[in-house]
């Protein structure tokens, strides 16, 4: 099973403050442990929300709001992708992470292709295949 671990941002990550040497050492050691256990399969850090934007969809109107975002729950500073045998294993790995100070880190299971089997029509499948094949997707809207 694949899991995404969402690491929240805070005032420091928003201000672009780099972690201390000690924090970096701890996080590096933790990351190394994950890699050497064959668990870590991906991950990235994200720039502060001041470099991001939001698009709001409402009845055909699209409203763009530039960052920074103000609500704490909207702040994501980075993510990991882990391959684990169970949700419990992902939780146990996360419990070993060097966080503190009330930080809440979220674990979410990632869908894989077979989860969509019931929803995928042959047309959707074909469109997907075209995309993977690197061809330009058919831009015509259905029925147009």
């Amino acid at each position, binding site marked *: 099973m694949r899991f995404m671990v969402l690491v929240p941002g805070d005032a420091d990550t928003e201000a672009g403050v780099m972690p201390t040497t000690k924090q970096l050492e701890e996080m590096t050691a933790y990351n190394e442990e994950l*890699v*050497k*256990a*064959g*668990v870590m*399969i*991906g991950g990235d850090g994200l720039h502060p929300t001041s470099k991001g934007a939001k698009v709001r969809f409402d009845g055909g109107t699209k409203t763009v709001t530039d960052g920074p975002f103000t609500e704490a729950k909207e702040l994501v500073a980075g993510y990991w*992708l882990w*391959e*684990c*045998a*169970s*949700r*419990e*294993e992902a*939780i*146990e*790995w996360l419990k070993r992470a060097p966080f503190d100070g009330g930080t809440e880190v979220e674990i979410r299971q990632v869908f*894989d*292709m*077979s989860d969509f*089997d019931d929803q995928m029509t042959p047309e959707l*499948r074909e469109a*997907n*295949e075209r*995309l*993977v*094949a*690197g061809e330009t997707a058919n831009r015509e809207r259905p029925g147009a």
Partner: protein
Amino acid sequence: MTTPATRATIDAIWRIESAKLVAGLTRSLRDVGLAEELAQDAFVAALEQWPTGGVPDEPGAWLMTVAKRRGIDQLRRRTTFERKQEQLIHEISVLERLEDPAFAAAEQPVEDDVLRLVFLTCHPAVPVEGRIALTLKIVGGLTSAEIARAFLTREPTIAQRIVRAKRTLAAVRAPFELPSGDELQQRLAPVLDVVYLVFNEGYAASRGDDWIRPELCGDALRLARILAALRPNEPEVLGLQALLELQASRLHARSTADGTPIRLEDQDRARWDRLLVRRGLAALDRLTALETPLGPYGLQAEIAACHARATSVPATNWPRIVALYDALATITGSPVVELNRAVAVAMAFGPDAGLELVDALADDPRLAGYHLVDTVRGDLLERAGRTVDARAAFLRAAERCENGAERGVLLARANACVD
């Protein structure tokens, strides 16, 4: 703050801690058999205590402390019996080490201890089945029941294999150390083979009704990733990792929802896992950057990469695959590789060219009874439009195939030939 632990949580912790625990114990006891036994005792203690008492803050240290205490108790009891002097001296020295205050150092495994452990569990003196069981148990952190389920055998059989393997390791006095120089290369081969065999059993099960057992592929992939993280500059380690990442990327596309195998040419390539493809190609890039000649796993990874990069079967670089199989056949001398090469030749230069090679292989005694020869012949005959011969070949293949799902496909293909 202590919440009761479920069995799933304890199993998860075991999966995380098992290899480090056994490695740490083996380092100080210099006896992997005893180390594994004590680690098991600690696991049983966790199963007894954690469901009500909750998981301790440092579960790894807890397990190590319990294992150590059990070791001391057990040895104190044992040494009171009359034993051979040599055995007694050994046990007293083990006891001394367990009671040494410096033992605490063992709680933190030394760099590469897990790798030392893998070299022990894959020791060439142990028969392959024993190596597989011991490696999955100790390094992979699987229970005997899980291993038995994965290999469609009974738990006592697996337990027996593990006992025998440990006995062999004790008999040959296998050391807990990293081989170096030429010996490293020699010792690495059986390690990689164990991982590859585990993956293959999951990827195309030799027995039973399920053709694919994804959990087994996952366990092998995890072991390959661990090895690649521990030895990132070892060409064949990277080759194996690349190969397994690329093969695993097709896992979801290789069978229908009801488990019927789907051939490569009929697979929906949109279902190939792009993350695994990327990881496989990245491992292959690291291998290429080492600028060393490719070994068997590196070559197979290159072949898998040809498929991964192609958008369809006709768009595949078959001449390159033929060249890679040429190199692989030269290194391995394996008739199975020759058979695969025949398929690639057929794809590159037409079915007749492939059939010529398959016919030349038909008399090879090493392939006697191997159903894939007839499967390939049937496939090539069908492509050549010789449906009557193709049907006969598919029927012969079905007769020899021991996997239920695959046999079904072969029979269906035989029946389709008379249309």
